[in-house]
């Protein structure tokens, strides 16, 4: 049977406010446990929440960026359940009246599949603390630094039909929130976390299959792998005569499998009700319009501009605009190098390769846009070849320094002196008599390809520094002279 996959995502985005959503404590990541939890975060008796207006502003920015209706009246509710890292015994969140109503984003996969993904809504809520189960001799530690960090939970409709689309959607949300500057986008630190609702149904069937929810996935790659794994499990199960149970499952990236966490029956009755400690949040059109004026260029608009302004392909423009820090970096490199295409190749090629291999965010790149721009300038003015540039880049990455400093220190300046090149070419021709004879014997149209061998010899002799264009010209001239 042919199966159709149906996916909806719930993405939690930590907002980049300086203080928490309902208290004045700092939200900075990585502090000593429980040093960024004030009386309100600890849920001491008698404490009360005060809503952080910056979180509201950021949520409205997001809503405007995804073409959504903004809730002019939004209401915080309490979601009641007991857990040690939930100090009040309830999470303050929004349910019936969220800040962001229905909206949509357009996505495109690497294979070129385009789709509009509708957003059901997005709401504001507070993050919980963290339970730490290691190093406590059989007990659990609790760190409440994260408790009260503002989150926007973005709930999509079940509009995605493949793991690729789900990852592309998550990337688009990431691009939007980082471009807006409302989230640092650091997935490794949990700034963006994803729950995937996955079901399958026979192709052509209208009715949705029973879904499972995959919890807390924190990388785009894992979104794809977790969904693929779960889809395969569900199809195997159904084809073997079983049924999918509605439940929450955990994706284990080490074993590449999903495991049951709790079934629907075991799920809590959260006993939602409006939080009596917080007033409904009421905003008007002028508030919304004032925020609209502050919106930066959004990823889709930036992609279109990259295509028209820099003449990039849709794919290249899409990749470069997909992450605001990368897009900023790229534009900086273009400005310095004056070559949009060359800049795109380097940012998406060599730089991306190094960032990936070293698991480094572009914001932490050891090679700055200024350094890379300087390097590209030296390619353009023929000081170095593209191949030598890769060598310079490697040194830049590992040891630092400007392109000029490295070229100078390593003696990598390209040899363009034709007299010097001619001498080396003569030596090569003299020592490779066998290959010269073959060249002479070959049909003239096949000789072009055979030049490569001599080229390699010349480059070997010059340590790659000879100007490739000059070498080709001289080789061709001298070899062809022998053939006449």
């Amino acid at each position, binding site marked *: 049977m042919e199966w159709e996959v149906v996916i909806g995502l719930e993405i939690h985005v930590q907002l980049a406010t300086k203080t928490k959503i309902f208290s004045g404590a700092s939200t900075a990541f990585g502090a000593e446990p429980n040093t960024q939890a004030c009386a309100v975060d600890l849920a001491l008796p008698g404490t009360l929440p005060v809503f952080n207006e910056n979180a509201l502003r950021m949520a409205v920015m997001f809503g405007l960026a995804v073409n959504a209706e903004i809730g002019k009246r939004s209401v915080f509710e309490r979601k009641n359940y007991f857990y040690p890292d939930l100090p*009040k015994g309830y999470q303050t969140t929004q349910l019936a009246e969220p800040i962001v109503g229905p909206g949509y984003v357009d996505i495109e996969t690497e294979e070129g599949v385009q789709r509009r993904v509708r957003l059901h809504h997005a709401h504001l809520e507070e993050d919980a603390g963290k339970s730490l189960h290691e190093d406590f001799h059989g007990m659990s530690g609790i760190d409440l630094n994260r408790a009260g960090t503002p989150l926007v939970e973005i709930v999509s409709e079940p509009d995605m039909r493949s793991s690729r689309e789900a990852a592309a959607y998550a990337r688009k949300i990431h691009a939007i929130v980082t471009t807006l500057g409302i989230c640092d986008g650091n997935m490794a630190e949990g700034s963006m976390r994803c729950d995937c609702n996955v079901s399958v149904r026979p192709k052509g069937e209208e009715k949705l299959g029973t879904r499972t929810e995959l919890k807390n996935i924190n990388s785009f790659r894992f979104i794809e792998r977790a969904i693929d794994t779960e889809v395969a499990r569900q199809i195997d199960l159904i084809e073997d005569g079983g049924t999918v149970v509605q439940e929450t499952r955990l994706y284990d990236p080490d074993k590449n499998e999903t495991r049951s966490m709790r079934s629907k029956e075991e799920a809590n009755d959260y006993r939602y009700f409006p939080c009596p400690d917080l007033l409904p949040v009421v905003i008007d059109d002028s508030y919304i319009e004032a925020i609209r004026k502050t919106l930066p260029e959004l990823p889709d608009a930036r992609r279109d501009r990259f295509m028209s302004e820099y003449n990039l392909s849709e794919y290249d423009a899409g990749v470069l605009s997909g992450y605001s820090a990368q897009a900023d970096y790229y534009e900086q490199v273009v400005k310095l190098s004056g070559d949009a295409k060359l800049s795109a190749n380097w940012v998406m090629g060599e730089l991306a390769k190094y960032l990936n291999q070293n698991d480094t965010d572009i914001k932490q790149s050891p090679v700055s846009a200024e350094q890379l721009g300087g390097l590209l300038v030296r390619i353009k003015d023929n000081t170095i070849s593209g191949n030598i540039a890769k060598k310079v880049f490697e040194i830049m990455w590992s040891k630092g320094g400007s392109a000029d400093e490295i070229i100078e220190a390593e003696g990598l300046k390209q040899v363009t002196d034709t007299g010097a090149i001619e001498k080396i070419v003569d030596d090569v021709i003299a020592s490779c008599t066998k290959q010269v004879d073959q060249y002479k014997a070959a049909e003239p149209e096949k000789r072009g390809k055979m030049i490569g061998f001599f080229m390699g010899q010349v480059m070997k002799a010059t340590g790659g520094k000879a100007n490739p264009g000059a070498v080709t010209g001289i080789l061709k001239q001298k070899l062809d002279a022998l053939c006449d």
Partner: protein
Amino acid sequence: MFDKTLAELAQGLERGDFSSTELAQAYLQRIGNLNSQYNAFITLTEEQALAQAKAADEARAAGNAGALCGLPIAHKDLFCTQGVRTSSASKMLDNFVSPYDATIVNRLKNAGTVMLGKLNMDEFAMGSSNESSFYGPARNPWDTERVPGGSSGGSAAAVAARLTPAATGSDTGGSIRQPAALCGITGLKPTYGRVSRYGMIAFASSLDQAGPMARTAEDCAMILNAMAGFDALDSTSAERDTEDYTADLNQPLSGLKIGLPKEYFSDTLDAGIAEQVRNAVTEFEKLGATVKEVSLPNTELSIPAYYIIAPAEASSNLSRFDGVRYGYRCADPVDLEDLYKRSRGEGFGPEVKRRIMVGTYALSAGYYDAYYRKAQQIRRMIQQDFIAALNDVDVIMGPTTPHPAFKLGEKSSDPVSMYMEDIFTLSLNLAGLPGISVPCGQTQGLPVGLQIIGNYFAEAKLLNIAHQFQQATDWHKQIPAGVEV
């Protein structure tokens, strides 16, 4: 000296009849001698009191004494007090020493008051008799075999027994006004939002309101001056200018329009109480007021609505008491569930557990619409009743309670009859309106309270009316037999 009102003590300090330190020492000694009869105080803060008194004396010497400087006060034990146990009269918080002051505690401290100690109450303010306290019931100074009312029973008993000239209380369904009535003192529940709730251990957030308890309306006005006002730490606090509640105390009452709700004077009302309340109304007529009947048709629905909303909010508010971060933790929990179940099972008393269960049930999936949503609809109807009635009259008057103080244990086994004691008070909390209870007579040798209900933020008006009544009567001056002053 112990029969002096707060205003009289202020004059004594001003004249130099005695110092703040002498005053504090005298009260601390009296509490030490007599508290065992009333069990009104559950914590004495002698050291802080003497330090604050000394500071007050120094401020006065330096010419920096405000109206409340150096005057003793005591706080209900649900107001957080820095460095002092704040228990809410629960085993759950018997070991909890607050690291911070509630906003009102801080404001009264800054006004120069001297904190004598912390007062008994029903556990987490849930009760109408003070019998649910982990520290045992406070007793009514008029008859120590009777309850002082609740939940601010310790506050009312302490003021009536002259162990403190003034106290703070909190009122979720009548917890200031009912004990004030039963102990023959004056207690004001302000408009919801007039006084900050920050640092007041929550019972039902949408109903809780702190207020002053003292022997006279004038004293209540003095304390409210320090307590009231916007607080950025409480999102439900009203953004209104503060006012001087003592300024209009002496306004005459001629032309005052009083409404009497016919539903408040039914056959089930205690005859002695009905008589005293009618006498009080006659007194107001003598002062120039006119009286007309009004109707609050949904009065009887206020009890079921209240006993859905208040427990629902309480069930959530009390979830933070889980044995994890502070407060009571059971011995040797085997796992997380055991920790929760036993810490809460052992830490909460029966009335608190009853309300947590009722509230949890009312909010459960499938029951929310039938109970919580319905109760909120009734709440709006009750509010509309009051707004309509207050369109016709300036204030509404009636009994504060349907009965005078009852005997300890009399209603303990019948929660519903206990809940009925709040029939006249809790509708104000549902509507968010201010109300004051003033002594207006006696029946069977026990005090009777008159409740005066005003429009939103009409505290100054209520205090003016109560003060004028107290200028014309002496019910507030009666001293319980057995209380020596």
